[in-house]
């Protein structure tokens, strides 16, 4: 029973990852792609979380944490770069 629930969760998450990849490939503007990649990172965290329960190992805890940090830093720096052409800008407005 518990195994079945975890398997259903994995299938749902892989379908959700597939939808994110489709939007990242298709998206009309660059910002759509950034949104889709950010959401892809979040969904990947959930996928690895289910995998941790299924394999009953806590070895992937650091992987989850680092993926969260990388998704945030990646989307923020990409958005700042697309905004002005630099990552850290010195203007006040």
């Amino acid at each position, binding site marked *: *029973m*518990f195994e079945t*629930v*975890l398997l*259903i*969760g994995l299938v*749902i*998450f892989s*379908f*959700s*990852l597939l*939808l*994110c990849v*489709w*939007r990242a490939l298709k998206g*009309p*503007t*660059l*910002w*759509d792609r*950034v*949104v*889709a990649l*950010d*959401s892809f990172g*979040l*969904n990947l*965290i*959930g996928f690895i*979380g*289910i995998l*941790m*329960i299924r394999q*009953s190992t*806590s070895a992937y*805890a*650091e992987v*989850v*944490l680092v993926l*969260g*940090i990388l*998704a*945030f830093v990646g*989307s*923020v720096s990409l*958005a*700042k770069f*697309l*905004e002005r052409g630099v990552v850290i800008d010195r203007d006040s*407005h």
Partner: protein
Amino acid sequence: MIEILISLFVLSGSLLSLIGSIGIIRLPDVYTRMHAATKSATLGVVLLILGTFTYFLAEGIFSLQLLITIVFVFLTAPVAAMIISRSAHRNGVELWSHTKHDELMESYPKHLEPERNTEKSDNP
């Protein structure tokens, strides 16, 4: 008994993430897609990591990394969404044609207003 709780966490988390991804596909412009991606995907991932944390707590392992992940995702996903949508608005990405009101446009100074034209689709 604890397995029922974990199953509830896992199922609700994965369904919320699926709802967020369907919103990314179905909604019409960047700002509404941001709304779908941020709210439901964040809640789904937080619920699912909470389920994982409960599972390891029942096995006798207190995993601090998972708690830090919950706090981090909960704090940073709205910030990332705000920065991405502000960047899109400043570069003149079109709003959906049925949008009633654009409050951010009124806050710009006159010479800094982004110009909106339809050819600006894929290169900033």
